[in-house]
């Protein structure tokens, strides 16, 4: 891809592979079994089982990750997550009720209610992300010591909101600097025992690596918009729109004869942008993952990632492959289901129970398909990213690991609960 990647890949190919400091020992088959069983139970329990599934998944990933000969350990429990969720509900219900009352107001407050609600929940979501990270860290044990995280979650939330606004205004160009800044904040407050972490990744470096991709995605779109502004005669269009009468389309065309051509061009360019974004997404993820893990530091322990982009593409290819297989299977299974729906709703004597049953069949079908794809995604892309991200890491300064002292206390699962209720959860 470029010089940097070639430089890191050359020794791996030339010399004998050195023993990996981090190994992932989990068997794919066991992970599939765990996820499929979890998906079935999620469906039959309307999602209540997710606290148990989430804990199983983390236990599997953590305990099968071996760093310098010792395994990580996840000590969180499903009941903690459930409690965190209940606390989150207790906090969110009054907020939702308040937002509902604001929406009933007919003045400017009511008009702004959507914006107020979005801003409040977005802020709370960022707060939840930071608190959830604290929960996960304090439940992560390595060699008998826990990780922990200090720092104010509100401080993080306001910082994150400010950065999101800048990123959106800059058309995504500020995103690398946002990631770097927020990661510095997180890692500055992260500890393994008494060993303080920090983040050494540079936003500028990620920016330069990401810039070509940004151009490939944004340039066609910019071209389309540019062509629009260039070609369309806005005054004539404005007049055409303000005139009375029936045939608006004809009037628009009369005012701007070139409009049809520009529209076709714009649609073509939007297609180019869409496919470029889809094709480049794995590359983007690989770049960010390698940049991120390479910047993590704990005391004198340094990390360096040798993640290869083609491995990440391999993970996505596996997802596509299983996804296609699943889609075919679902398509075949859908035929009798749709026939059943037709029989239940069609005909003269369609009964009320028949209609409800048909809705039920469609509902179950939707849930099966959605859960199926999310399970495949977890078992292919997410698992591979975890494994690749971990195994591609080289650690130096490991002697520091032998003298770390305990520190930190377990935190509550409130953040996890909020993140769950607000749909901003992670692993």
């Amino acid at each position, binding site marked *: 891809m470029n010089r940097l990647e070639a430089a890191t890949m050359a020794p791996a190919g030339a010399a004998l592979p050195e023993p990996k400091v981090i190994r992932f*020992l989990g068997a794919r088959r066991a992970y599939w079994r765990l996820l499929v069983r979890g998906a079935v*139970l*999620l469906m*039959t*329990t*309307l*999602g*209540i*089982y*997710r606290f*148990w599934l989430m804990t199983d998944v983390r*236990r*599997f990933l*953590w*305990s*099968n990750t*071996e760093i310098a000969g*010792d*395994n990580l*350990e*996840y000590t969180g429990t*499903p009941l903690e997550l459930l409690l965190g969720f209940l606390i989150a*509900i207790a906090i*969110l*219900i009054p907020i*939702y009720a308040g937002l*509902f009352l604001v*929406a*009933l107001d*007919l003045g400017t407050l*009511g008009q702004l209610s959507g914006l107020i609600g979005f801003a409040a929940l977005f802020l709370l979501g960022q707060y939840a992300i930071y608190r959830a990270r604290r929960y996960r860290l304090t439940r992560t*044990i*390595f*060699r*008998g*010591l*826990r990780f922990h995280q200090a720092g104010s979650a509100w401080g993080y939330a306001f910082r994150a909101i400010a950065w999101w606004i800048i990123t959106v205004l800059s058309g995504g160009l500020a995103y690398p600097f946002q990631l770097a800044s927020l990661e510095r904040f997180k890692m500055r407050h992260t500890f393994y025992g008494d060993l303080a972490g920090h983040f050494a990744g540079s936003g500028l470096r990620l920016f330069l690596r990401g810039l070509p991709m940004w151009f490939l995605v944004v340039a066609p779109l910019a071209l389309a918009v540019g062509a629009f502004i260039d070609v369309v005669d806005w005054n004539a269009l404005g007049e055409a729109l303000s005139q*009375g009468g029936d045939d608006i389309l004809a009037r628009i065309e009369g005012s701007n004869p070139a409009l049809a051509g520009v529209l076709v061009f714009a649609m073509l360019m939007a297609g180019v942008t869409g496919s470029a974004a889809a094709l480049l997404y794995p590359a983007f993820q690989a770049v960010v993952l390698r940049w991120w893990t390479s910047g993590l530091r704990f005391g004198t322990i340094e990390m360096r990632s040798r993640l290869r982009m083609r491995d990440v593409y391999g993970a996505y290819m596996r997802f596509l492959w299983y996804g296609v297989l699943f889609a075919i299977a679902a398509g075949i299974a859908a035929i009798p289901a749709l026939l059943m729906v037709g029989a239940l709703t069609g005909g*003269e004597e*369609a009964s*009320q129970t028949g*209609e*409800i049953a048909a*809705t039920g069949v*469609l*509902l179950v079908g*939707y*849930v099966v398909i*959605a*859960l199926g794809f*999310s399970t495949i995604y977890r078992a292919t892309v997410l698992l591979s990213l975890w494994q690749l991200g971990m195994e591609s890491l080289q650690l130096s300064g490991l002697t520091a*690991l*032998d*003298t*770390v*002292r*305990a520190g930190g206390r377990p935190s509550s699962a409130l953040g996890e609960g909020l993140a*769950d*209720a607000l*749909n901003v959860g992670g692993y």
Partner: protein
Amino acid sequence: MPGGRDGLNAMTSGTGIFFDGLTSARHEAVVALGASALQIAGGDGRLLAEWPYDAIEALAAPGQVLRLRRRGNPTLERLDIRDSRLAAAIDARAVRVDRSGGLQHRQRLGVIGWTLAATASLLLVAWFGVPAIADRLAPLVPGGIERKLGDAIDLQVRGLLDRDKKGAAFECGRAATEQPGRAALDRLVQRLEAAAELRLPLRVSIVRRPEANAIALPGAQIYVFRGLVEKADTADEVAGVIAHEIGHIAHRDGTKSVIEAGGLSLLFGMLLGDFVGGGAVVVAARTALKSSYSREVERAADAYGVNLMNRAGGDARALGTMLTKIGGATEPGMTVLADHPDTRARVTAIDAMAAQRPAPPLLDARGWTALKRICAG
């Protein structure tokens, strides 16, 4: 494995890796199987920890490792055993350690059973509880709040329905040529309202929508679509549909459905979580639930409408005539079921309740002609 059993009994000690929870140092430990406790000693023979067998728990670890801790221990002491024979010996002595997974399996079955029970009770509450609560709560909502709620919903409904951007007002009866129609409509509504005795003043408008429908919103707001007026042959047919909608208002059906929707989205939206992009499921579940009791609601509104027409001195059978014409779809979005047994049954029920006497039309011929032209604009 008889041989293994012998070895197990003979075994009294082995090695493991011990972490004391205070520092990250690895301690190569000698693990001795005492009479009632596991004794963990350092390389120098100093006793590091002594764990009673009944307090030992196993933690998640890769296949070849048995990772142990002492239950309820606030410091994170850990013991890793990689020697499979020693692991088997500990497994045999510690009741909470079960490497076959049987113990965990039983616990998990309990969890699954209870979550299924919780799901069942949730569905029952959604099916029976939420509508019942909405039924009882809706009459308690004060008129002022109902009006406010209605106005807020009105904004949304207008946004959805008012698709005509050509500049004509959404409501008919504003332009000078339409004024006589508006006056005729007011006379018609007045007769119905006098007989209905509602707690809020009624607001009825004909609106520019091509469909033959009508809707009632909380706060006593009724919109009759112009398509319905065009399809009607007598003033009583329009009056019948308005009477049916007044039924919805008298029964507070709009407020009820708002409470129901809020309750259901709270119930499902929060519990479903983000594994399945919950929103679509909630919407589908809500429609599935709604269609089951919306029929009862429609029939109740029919009954009220017939009763009201009887009291106002109109021809209640006109509602049935109109229903047949529009295929039972009194509300927007309802499926048109012209020959459907449901619609036929509704018409039969209406005819049975209607007063069997010839009634003069609710509007005179001039009034009816004016009403027909209310959207002529």
